[in-house]
C-alpha cells in the first residue's frame, strides 16, 4: 500500500469532523471518495495534503509513519492535490503554469527549452491531444483544457498519489469524458489516485474501489466491481446498506 490512514481523527473545536477513519490506497488504482456534503471528504484531503494537522491516528506512506505538517511535506512524499479552483495563473502560458514555483534553470536563466520539452512529453504520455499550443496563455483555454493542465501539473513531479477534488464539477459533457479518461490513465500508468466526486456515474466510470464517508466516519470501502449504485447511495445517505456500513454485523473495516 502506498498510503494508509489508520484511525484518523480531526476535530474543529467541539466538532468531530473525522472520526477513526481507515483508508488505504495502492499504486495503480483509483480510489473514489464519496459522501454527502459535510461528510468530511475535503477535510480528509486536507489532512493528507498537510493543510490540517491531524488530532489522532496515523498516516503511513510506503509502510513508514509520516507526519505531514505542510504542503511541502506532502509534495516531498509524492502527494499532489488538484483543487476545485485549479490554482492556475491566467496570464501565464501552459508551460509556465506547469513549472510555476519549480522552474528549471540553466546557470542564471530559465531553461525554457527543457521545460517545454518536458511539458510536451508529459502531455503526450497522458495521451492529451486537446492542447495544441503549449505557449498559449491559460486564460484562453476551455474548462476541460484547464483541468487537464492542472492534472498534468500534478503528474509532472514524479508524484505517486494524485488527489482530485471534484475535477469534473464545472465541466461540460464532452470535457467530463476526457477528464475521466485522463484519470483512468493516471492510475494505469502506476499512480495512486484519490478521486472525490458527487457524481456516481463518474465514480463508477473510473474507480477500482469506492470509499463512502458518512458523518465523518468510514461507512464502507467497496470493490467497484462488486458494488451497485443503490448500495453506494444507501451508504452515502444512511451510512449502511444491508450487511455493510456503520453498526452493521459485518463492519467491513469501519469500526462501530
Amino acid at each position, binding site marked *: 500500500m502506498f498510503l494508509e490512514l489508520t484511525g484518523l481523527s480531526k476535530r474543529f473545536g467541539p466538532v468531530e469532523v473525522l472520526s477513526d477513519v481507515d483508508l488505504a490506497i495502492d499504486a495503480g488504482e483509483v480510489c473514489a471518495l464519496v459522501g454527502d456534503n459535510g461528510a468530511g471528504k475535503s477535510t480528509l484531503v486536507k489532512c493528507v495534503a498537510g493543510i490540517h494537522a491531524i488530532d489522532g491516528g496515523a498516516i503511513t506512506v510506503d509502510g513508514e509513519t509520516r507526519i505531514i505538517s505542510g504542503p511541502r511535506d506532502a509534495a516531498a512524499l509524492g502527494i499532489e492535490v488538484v483543487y476545485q479552483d485549479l490554482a492556475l495563473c491566467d496570464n501565464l502560458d501552459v508551460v509556465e503554469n506547469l513549472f510555476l514555483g519549480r522552474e528549471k534553470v540553466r546557470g542564471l536563466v530559465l531553461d525554457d527549452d527543457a521545460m517545454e520539452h518536458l511539458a510536451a512529453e508529459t502531455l503526450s504520455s497522458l*495521451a492529451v491531444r486537446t492542447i495544441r499550443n503549449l505557449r498559449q496563455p491559460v486564460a484562453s483555454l476551455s474548462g476541460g483544457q484547464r483541468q487537464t493542465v492542472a492534472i498534468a501539473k500534478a503528474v509532472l513531479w514524479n508524484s505517486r498519489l494524485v488527489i482530485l477534488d471534484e475535477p469534473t464539477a464545472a465541466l*461540460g*459533457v*464532452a470535457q*467530463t*469524458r476526457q477528464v*475521466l*479518461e485522463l484519470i*483512468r*490513465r493516471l492510475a*494505469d500508468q502506476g499512480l495512486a489516485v484519490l478521486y472525490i466526486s458527487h457524481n*456516481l*456515474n*463518474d*465514480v*463508477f*466510470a*473510473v474507480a477500482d474501489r469506492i470509499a463512502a464517508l458518512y458523518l465523518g466516519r468510514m461507512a464502507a470501502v467497496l*470493490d*467497484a*466491481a*462488486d*458494488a*451497485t*449504485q*443503490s448500495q453506494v447511495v444507501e451508504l452515502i445517505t444512511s451510512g449502511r446498506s444491508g450487511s455493510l456500513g456503520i453498526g452493521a454485523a459485518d463492519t467491513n473495516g469501519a469500526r462501530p
Partner: protein
Amino acid sequence: MALPPAVELRRRNRAALLEQLHRHGPQTRAALTEALELNRSTIGALATDLAESGHLQETTGQSTGSAGRPSTLVACVPQSITVAAVEIRADRLRFALVGLGGEVLERSETALEDGDDPMTAVAVITGGTAGDADEAVAAMPGLVDEGTVAHSTELGWVDRDAAADLEAATGREWQVVDTATAAAVGEWSRGDAHEARKLLYLHGGRGLTAGLVIEGRSQRGGSIQLGHIVVEPGGRECACGLRGCLEAEIAAFGFAEDIENTTLAAGMGDAAARNRLRRSGEDLGRALGAVVTATGPDEILFGGWLRELYLSTAAPVRSALAETTLPHLRSRLRLRTPVLGDEGALIGAAETGFAAIFDRMR
C-alpha cells in the same frame, strides 16, 4: 515439404526479428538480442541478411548522452511489406496502405450513398495499390465467420460471401474481419491494451457488435452479435425478427447523437432523460454480463458511440454487471475506453494482415 531444421529455425528467427521491429519500432542490436533471447552473432547475421533482402536498414541512432560511439538502430523499411486495409461502414469507406513498422503510406476516405455496393467502392478506392500489397484485409460491422458476413444490422447483409465478392470486384484475395475484432487487434497492438490476455472490444455503430481477441490474435468465433442479445424477453420488436434485443431496447439508431443532449438534460434534472440513460445502462450491463460469463475477458473496451454511453451511464452498467456475473470473473475485469478512437478498426485490420504475413514466414 519439411525443411532441414537449421533452415526452418532461421526462417522462424527472421520472422521473429521482423515482428519485433514491426511492433516495437527501431531499436539497437543489443535490445534485439535481449528481446528475442538470441545469440548476438545470430542477430548480426539475420540483420545483414534482412538488410540485403531490403526489409531492414541500419541507421545511426541519436547519441544517448553517454560517452562512446552512438549505437546503430535497426529499423524496418516500410515499403518492403505492405498491407491494404479497408473499413466499411454503412455510410463511408476508409482505406489505408500500411507499411512494415506500422507507417501509413497512403490513406483515403469516401462517402457511400444508399444503394452503392461497398465492394465496387473498395475496388475504386484501393485503385492499383491493393493488387501490389502483400495482404489485404477488410473490416465490416457484423457477425463475420471466415470471409462470410453471417449477419450485419448496419449493412443489411445476411450470409453474404464478402471475401468472394471482394475478390470478384478487385481481382485479389481478401481477408474479412468484423470491425470490433479489428479494433480489438488495433488496440492490443498499437493502443494501450497489450496487457489484456483476453480483450473484448464493443463497437457501437449503426448496430452493436463485439469482438474477442486472445493475445492480440483474432479468433474464429470471436465475433459476437452484442446488439442481438435479448435483454427484455417479449420486449420491443427488432429488425432481426427477435423481440427485446439490446439494440431495439436502447434504440441504437439515432441514439448515438442523442447521448450528449440526454446526459446534459439528465444532469439538469430531467427525469425522463435520467430514466432513459439508466435503462440503457442497465440493458447494456445485462447484455455484457452474458458475454462476460460466456467468454471471461480480462479487459473490455467501449468503442464507437458506446464510449459515450458508458461514460454517461457507468453506474447502471457496472451495477447490472455486478449483479449478473460471477465474482471471480468480474474481480479481474478492467473496463476502459479505447485510445485509438475511430482509427482502431483500420489500424487493427492492417495488423491482422501483418499477423498473417508473419505466420506465413515462420
